[in-house]
């Protein structure tokens, strides 16, 4: 295990150090005093395990492929953005655009998330213990979002595929999103996922999927039709 005092390093130095340590196969890296700075733990492509003691700014643990990052604090916008593989755990609340465009791996936020959580999500699993804000799952393409608490307005707007489960109240459905009955096995999977994160309240989750009415233009010109 290696301790890094972020306050003694610039963000660039810190990220360089993380990259070096991960490449050397360091098992665990412990970051102290992150000072809520932006862009901490960006672009790490080797597997490693990192714990950050304190809150982080925008884009923490983003553009990653492999690492396991735990943040004991709050996070700003775009935590876990474009995650390919690996895991991000946040013990408190996340800002907007949580896990935006994530393509794989797992992001777990114990507290609440701001607007646009899981926006443009392309795969993997996003789990929010508390509430999520408006436009959650906007234009989501694939993957699963589980929200333990309530979700705001416009959930699942223009989603293509993927599934959103909501444990609490739904502000409103976005365009082309619809509620579908969750099967027993799906509910068990959701409960088990929550239990892995220490949430044992077996709620009746609401399942939201795409109504698929916006997949195609309603009409085509003669030549466009010829092509189909």
């Amino acid at each position, binding site marked *: 295990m290696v301790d890094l005092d972020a306050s003694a390093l610039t*963000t*660039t130095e810190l*990220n*360089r150090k993380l990259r070096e340590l991960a490449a050397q196969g360091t098992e665990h890296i412990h970051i102290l005093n992150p000072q809520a700075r*932006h*862009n901490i733990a*960006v*672009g790490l*492509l080797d597997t490693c395990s990192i714990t950050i003691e304190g809150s982080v*700014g*925008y*884009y923490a643990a*983003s*553009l*990653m*492929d492999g690492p396991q990052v735990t943040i004991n604090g709050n996070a700003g*916008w*775009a935590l876990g*953005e*474009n995650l*390919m593989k690996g895991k991000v755990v946040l013990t408190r609340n996340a800002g907007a*655009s949580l896990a*935006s*465009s994530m*393509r794989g791996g797992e992001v777990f936020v114990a507290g609440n998330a701001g607007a*646009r959580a899981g*926006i*443009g999500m*392309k*795969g993997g699993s996003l789990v929010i213990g508390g509430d999520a804000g408006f436009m959650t799952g*906007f*234009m989501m*393409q*694939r993957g699963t979002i589980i929200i333990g608490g309530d979700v705001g307005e416009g959930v699942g707007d223009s989603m*293509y*595929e993927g599934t959103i489960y909501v444990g609490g109240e739904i502000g409103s459905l976005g365009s082309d999103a619809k509620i579908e009955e969750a099967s027993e096995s799906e509910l068990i999977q959701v409960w088990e996922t929550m239990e892995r994160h220490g949430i044992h309240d077996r709620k009746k989750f609401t399942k939201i999927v795409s109504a698929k009415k916006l*997949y*195609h*233009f*309603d*009409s*085509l*010109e*003669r*030549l*466009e039709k*010829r*092509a*189909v």
Partner: protein
Amino acid sequence: MVLGSSHIWATHHIEDIHAKAELGRYRIRGFSTFQKVTHFDDLVFLSTGLTRFPLEGYKEKCNTQVVLGARYASEPLVIDTPIYVTGMSYGALSRNAKVALGKAASLVGTATCTGDGGMLQDERDASNKLIYQVLPSRYGFDPHHLMGANAAEIVVGQGAKPGTGGLLMGVKVADNIAEMRELPLGIDQRSPTRHPDWLGPDDLSIKIEQIREATEGRLPISVKLGACRVADDVKLAAKAGADTIVIDSMVAGTGASAEILLDHSGIPTVPAIVQAREALRELGLYGQVSLVASGGIRNGADVAKALALGADAVAIGIAALIALNCNKEIPGTNFEDEIGVKAGYCNRCHTGLCPVGIATQDPVLEARLDPDEGAERVANFINSMTMELALLTRSLGKGDVRSLEPEDMAALTIEASAMAQIPLAGTNKVFGM
């Protein structure tokens, strides 16, 4: 008078209403605007006479190499000609077209750019210098590809469709395209226009910092803007930390756009360059932030005029496609049968029916484009333009394309004078000042 002579109810308006009365939605097409706008043809060069003397036009040394993005990047983009191939998506274009463009750019020592839908490995392999786009859709976005690129380009907007995202009709969302984009097969893909992770210019500066962190400060980072409120947008992009600003005008090409946007939004290339230059000058960043112009670059004169107005380089789209045989009848094609119009009149890239294998995902059509032969044609074309540029530069008595300046030109129309901020030919008057 017959109806055909009305300017208000011109025949294309009548056709348009008939089509929409059937269709019930906005119309979509490829290529670029039909509006008649002030363009480079409205400017001319004032070559040497007795006040200054020329360089030998055909051979004397003339530098055409330019460096883009040296503001912060430790490895700026060095290209041997100030002309590079713009971002055109694999999806809008076929694999053979993307590979041909990559090879062509490598042959002439310049760069090419990915486009929406992510990076094709074959394109990376073909391109010595590859710009990797960061688009609102983030289709196929992969940090490995970003780190392996030679530059990154954050797309805020496109001149052909400012304020909207990518558009790809279902016929082109074929197996491989759908898989790369992680979308359902065959959907009419209408991509997001807002980035998922940032909204305003203050967030953009953090996004730029993120990309810089991920690439260890090596890559130049450009911001591509559709030319609308150019002065403000350029200032905000520069302040957000862009190394390069790409200003893409209303005449810029597209694989598919709503026709109404093509014709009715954005401003032309000439005033866009001038406004961008002046905005950077106001910030004291002209010369530090590189400026790239795109939209309607067709020959070496257009390049020279763009540079003289203040651009450091230009990017070409449609011109490169034409060099690949767009709108040309070749053995095996029959434009009228296959895409419904004669060669020379085609703007139907969005249908996926491209007879010459460029803007299609149909393997039979794609096979009509040989990537090596195509690369050679595009390389020849870029070389020709570079030679034309050097010829004009020498005729102006200059040995470096970077020395071209507004004073080298005159405007042929009052509009061009006002938009380019240079005197009307035969007068000392700059209109609109």
